[in-house]
């Protein structure tokens, strides 16, 4: 055995050990996994029946795998830059590429299991549907086997590509590499726009493009791309990404750089009158402002603002105002939910939980202050985006007034969408707290948590189903308004109840997570 291999195997085994407790490598865990797969197959049978083509089921699984990999892996990659263990890791007697390759291999293994589970669910569903029904979709066994093989390759390619691209996250936190964040965010959100269509057995492209022979080509192409990203991630992160991996800079005692305070800093220094709960909200908002004041974020916001203004200009011309509103509302809805999770994850990594929960306020008030802060920020983002689009529209109006600006139906449609997204926004940001609740609570475990996970899918569902395209001609029918009202009347109180129940045990949950991230598995 070569010297490299001798030292590589232990580090790979070490990285694997982080995920082994979650994998079906023991009889008990395998039983849990099989139970979960069985339940999901049953759910698929109930939801999809024999209405959906086998390819649509596989594509849905592919999208869900994508979503299941990209966010946890990104958070993990970000957290890796701040873990207390980091300096131990960086001083292992192995070159950086080896260290990063070992991490990647461990994550590939974990994601491989997850993708295999999704593939198995889709395959069992399709074969089961073929045996139980006489649907023309499942008539040909040859088609089923071809699909199973082709989509299996696609799932493997997705594992390679998505795992490798999330490994680039430490790189994206440095200098010019932050520009990678823009395409990264697009890649992140790629599957979300398709989920709704696939559930409805609808495709973006002609059905021919989803047949097994084409899928094999996609799989090979994606695998090739993934292979390139894999090597780029190893080399790039080893060279540039580990720059930010060492903990705080030291040696600056007595040499304090006198920073010219910004407008925000001067405002805080003047000691605002806010106290108590309002101050908690302001503290959380300061985090959002800090992120927004980063020069790369400013650049991104500038680009997006210009894009939205251009979009507003053309939207007015093409009478696509409602579509413009759709586009503007969908992303903040998802990102607000994501940012709540990321904010707590960041505080866990930075070991701030004791500080936060030793503020003289109940955990409920502390969690509520964060929620209010997020709502405020989201409203400001959406307001800014709508304003940018509005400016573009006004410019168009001045330059060349279109014949039709907006009909009453358009205004009604836009209002309906706004309320629908607002309902989702409130629902999603409240129910996402289920993940911090006590999982021994049967309501949280059985209902709250799946809802929390599904909350990322809802914006696409709203986009596809909530407002039919016919509203332009016929307006929003009364039953749609009634449906929206009933949905809001049920969803928001339910989500509020989940929020209140979850934050009762949020302290214990957060401290446990903090201890786990810090690598401590027992209380001191």
């Amino acid at each position, binding site marked *: 055995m070569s010297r490299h291999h001798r030292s590589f195997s232990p580090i790979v085994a070490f990285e694997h050990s982080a995920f082994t407790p979650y994998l079906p490598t023991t009889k008990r865990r395998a039983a849990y996994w099989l139970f979960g797969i069985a339940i999901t197959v049953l759910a698929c049978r109930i939801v999809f029946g024999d209405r959906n083509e086998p390819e649509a089921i596989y594509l849905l699984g592919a999208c869900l795998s994508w979503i299941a990999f990209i966010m946890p892996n990104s958070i993990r990659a970000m957290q890796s830059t701040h873990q207390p263990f980091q300096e131990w890791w960086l001083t292992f007697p192995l070159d950086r590429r080896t260290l990063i390759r070992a991490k990647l291999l461990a994550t590939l293994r974990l994601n491989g299991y997850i993708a295999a589970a999704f593939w198995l669910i889709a395959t069992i569903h399709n074969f089961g549907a073929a045996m139980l029904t006489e649907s023309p979709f499942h008539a040909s066994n040859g088609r089923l086997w071809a699909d199973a093989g082709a989509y299996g390759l696609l799932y493997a390619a997705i594992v390679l590509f998505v795992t490798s691209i999330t490994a680039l996250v430490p790189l994206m936190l440095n200098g010019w590499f932050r520009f990678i964040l823009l395409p990264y965010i697009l890649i992140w959100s790629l599957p979300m726009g398709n989920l709704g269509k696939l559930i409805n057995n609808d495709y973006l492209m002609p059905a021919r493009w989803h047949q097994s022979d084409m899928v094999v080509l996609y799989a090979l192409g994606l695998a090739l791309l993934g292979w390139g990203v894999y090597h780029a991630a190893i080399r790039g992160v080893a060279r540039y990404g580990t720059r930010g991996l060492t903990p*705080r*800079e*030291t*040696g*600056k*005692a007595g040499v*304090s*750089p*006198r*920073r010219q*305070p910004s407008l925000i*800093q001067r405002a*805080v*220094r003047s*000691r*605002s009158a*806010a*106290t*108590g709960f*309002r*101050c*908690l909200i*302001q*503290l959380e908002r*300061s*985090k959002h402002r*800090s*992120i927004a004041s980063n020069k790369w974020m400013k650049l991104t916001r500038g680009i997006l603002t210009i894009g939205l203004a251009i979009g507003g200009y053309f939207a007015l011309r093409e009478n696509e105002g409602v579509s413009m509103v759709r586009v503007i509302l969908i992303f903040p809805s998802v990102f607000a939910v994501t940012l709540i999770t990321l904010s707590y994850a960041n505080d866990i990594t*930075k*070991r*701030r*939980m*004791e*500080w936060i*929960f*030793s*503020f*003289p*306020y*109940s955990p409920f008030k502390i969690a509520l202050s964060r929620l209010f802060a997020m709502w405020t920020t989201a409203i400001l983002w959406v307001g800014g985006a709508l304003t940018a689009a509005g400016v573009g529209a006004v410019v168009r109006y001045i330059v060349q007034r279109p014949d039709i600006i907006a009909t009453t139906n358009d205004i009604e449609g836009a209002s309906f969408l706004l309320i629908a997204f607002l309902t989702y926004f409130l629902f999603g940001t409240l129910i996402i707290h289920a993940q911090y609740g006590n999982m021994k609570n049967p309501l949280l475990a059985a209902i709250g948590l799946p809802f929390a996970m599904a909350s990322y899918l809802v914006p696409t569902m709203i986009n596809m189903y909530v407002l039919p395209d016919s509203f332009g001609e016929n307006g929003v029918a009364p039953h749609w308004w009634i449906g929206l009202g009933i949905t809001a009347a049920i969803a928001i109180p339910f989500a509020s109840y989940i929020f209140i129940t979850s934050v009762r045990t949020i*302290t*214990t949950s957060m*401290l446990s997570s903090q201890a786990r991230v810090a690598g401590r598995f*027992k*209380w*001191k």
Partner: protein
Amino acid sequence: MEQTVTIQCTGVEMIFKKKQALRNVTFSTNSGSIVGLLGPNGAGKSTLMRILTGILEPTGGFVEVLGRKPGVETLAQLSFLPDRGQLPNWLTADQWLGYASGIYPDWDIALEREWVRKLEVDRTMGIGTMSRGQEARLQLLTCLSRRTKIVILDEPFTGVDLLSRERISSAIAEETAGGDRTFLIATHDIREMESMFDRIILIGDGTIKGVYDTEELRDEGHSVESCYREVFA
């Protein structure tokens, strides 16, 4: 000065993930005293402190802080410095103190200014760029700028440089001289703090191994360190 009981623990138990972290912990502290909570790693010091602050609820026993069950109300009368906890690194020291003055109802601006001077905290410095010693001083400043009756410090010296330690020790000594504040300090730096402790509570394997009055120990020819070694060696 009349002393009142500020912390009372009776038979406190804590079971976490089927492991008994604390077992039959019983002790009390009086106002105006500095109490050292000493023990090896994994003894249960931080767990006990989290129970006293109300962050965790014990699975058994009885805890009273200033005559009340630990919770939000007692947090308003208690300052807590967590072990290795980090302050918001996107803020400067001044910004953090600004928010702290709004969050804590008992904040004293005059105290804040005084401690900024004594602990030599640079207000304009970003927390994210501070050394551990600098942040430790800022964290202690946060605790001492409040008019609280109890100050709980969990390992205030971890990873802190010598000069910062001396400043922190002096600050604590000064704060307790003639005051009625209770300090409960968990630390491994026994020599640094030995001369300041009025009492020590030795905790190991989740149980109280002994409670000693330091003056009595010295009268018997012992030191805190020697007592610690006797109990845990």
